[in-house]
């Protein structure tokens, strides 16, 4: 049965009404402020006195700012390390956990850190990496007597230490997503390859991995987006220090804005960060758009 034009019109109006609260909140509290932020990035402004229009000066200042350069480099380290460890590690562990008798127990164990906040994770790992009473130095001292290393204040070890905490926290997500993906792969092609005498690696390389591709895209995109946004762990473990050595773009933006009151410059950094995030998610969004299954 087809709805009459009147009810159709009625539905049209009703659907707008149902969307309205969400729409108003998203537009009013998120999208308009974002546009405003873009606008601020063209101004020099300390938050109190009147803003001065400076055009692209804030963006051009990136190239002359050694703090920015270091922060940018650190951000890239975080992104690459995220792809190398939580993502690849999650893939490997998911493949091993499958069909393992204690698989479910292990799955929960890898998942626990994910439910703990980054702040608690950071606090726990700060203790682990402490110079005098940290577990890590204590364990190493069993083999190398009197071993003392100040992990969180030496560069680049502080970033390595924070990445440990990060990997510990993040691995569960990619693992569980890969496990879900693996469970949807039909058995037939895998069994056929076993009959053909393919090795486990060959099966993974030529059967499982290609069929896992949609999940892999989701995991890689989300991991990259999240690593670009890294803030909490660094804020808790080093505050970007010592001497701004372990800052990433998200931390640099925060410091420039709220401690140094370079609001315009902070805004410009956040615009750059947003552009980077959009760039890494374009492929994924396009994929979703085609399938009309927008998600995440």
């Amino acid at each position: 049965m087809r709805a009459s034009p009147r009810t159709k019109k009625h539905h049209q109006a009703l659907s707008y009404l149902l969307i309205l609260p969400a729409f108003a909140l998203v537009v009013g509290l998120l999208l308009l402020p974002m546009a405003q932020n873009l606008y601020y990035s063209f101004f020099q402004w300390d938050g109190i006195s009147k803003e001065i229009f400076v055009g692209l000066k804030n963006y051009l200042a990136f190239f002359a700012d050694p703090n920015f350069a270091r922060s940018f480099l650190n951000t890239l380290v975080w992104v690459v390390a995220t792809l190398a460890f939580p993502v690849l590690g999650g893939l490997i562990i998911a493949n091993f956990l499958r069909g393992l008798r204690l698989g479910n127990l292990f799955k929960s164990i890898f998942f626990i850190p994910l439910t703990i906040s980054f702040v608690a994770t950071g606090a726990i790992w700060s203790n682990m990496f402490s110079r005098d009473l940290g577990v890590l130095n204590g364990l190493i001292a069993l083999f190398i007597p009197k071993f003392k290393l100040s992990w969180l204040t030496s560069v680049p070890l502080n970033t390595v230490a924070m990445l440990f905490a990060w990997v510990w926290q993040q691995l569960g997500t990619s693992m569980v997503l890969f496990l879900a993906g693996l469970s949807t792969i039909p058995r037939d092609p895998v069994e056929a390859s076993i009959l053909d005498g393919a090795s486990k690696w060959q099966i993974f390389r030529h059967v499982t991995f290609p069929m896992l591709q949609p999940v892999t895209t989701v995991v890689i995109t989300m991991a990259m987006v999240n690593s670009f946004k890294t803030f909490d762990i660094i804020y808790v473990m080093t505050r970007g220090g010592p001497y701004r050595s372990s800052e990433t773009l998200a931390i640099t933006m925060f410091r420039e804005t709220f401690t140094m009151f370079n609001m315009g410059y902070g805004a410009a950094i956040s615009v750059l960060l947003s552009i980077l995030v959009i760039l890494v998610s374009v492929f994924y969004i396009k994929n979703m758009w085609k399938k009309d299954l927008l998600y995440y």
Partner: protein
Amino acid sequence: METRKNGPDARKTLLTLLFYVFSTLIVALWLLPILIAVFTSLKSMDEIMGSSKMWTPPKVLHWENFTRVWNKVGMSAYVLNTFLITVPSVVGALLVSSLSGFALAFYRFRLNKAVLVLFIAGMLIPFQMLMIPVFRLSDALSLRDTRPGVILFHIAFQLGFCTFFLRNFMRTIPFSLVEAPRIDGASEWTIYRKIIMPLSISSLAALGVLEFTWIWNDLLWSLVLIQSDSLKPVTLGLANMQGEFVSYYNMTAAGSIIAAIAPLGVFLLFQRYFISGLTVGAEKG
């Protein structure tokens, strides 16, 4: 014959053994930080300073570390604040997004896809892009340093994800379940309330568990919006404590455990929902 058969067998046993050793090590590495945090939180500072072996269990259980963090450092107030922020935020986000998800799933209207893109943009773009304007806007609306302010921004920030999540689930509900009552003259409100909502309970639960964890664990919004100590959530309290009590390992460990206990409990109770919530997208994508 025998040796040819034994060779690969022995190798296989060795490989299996290696595999189990390696996986035990990895699992231990994942549990170690939690175990040590628990041990440390129950030791006295004297015991901690006396030995570099942080991995040994406490000789005497010093529960007073917890009571001190809970009462004197003020963790009890921080936990209550988090609760008062998280629960209304989750309820609000689910309520508003169930309406928008319903509309996007069952009505064809112009701009349907445009609205989707708008929402996806709002949820992918980094928080940093919002910090300065939100700081000013919350001031202009007198929402800075108030609980309703944080709740409102939390809801807005989570709506994109929630709407997608629910819309995608609702799309799997057969359209006939909506159309048949419509023909029978049921109002749209009745369809939403009596048919779609009951059918969506499990996905609402999955979403609720995820959102609870995320909002509970949030640091950034409160960092930007809250100044008064009396309104601070547990993440902010712990971050400050980490600065103040940095050499009091037992206190910071106890604080971390207190901060982690609620989301951990929710996860353990609703593990099934949590995992299904996280994976729906990956399976479909």
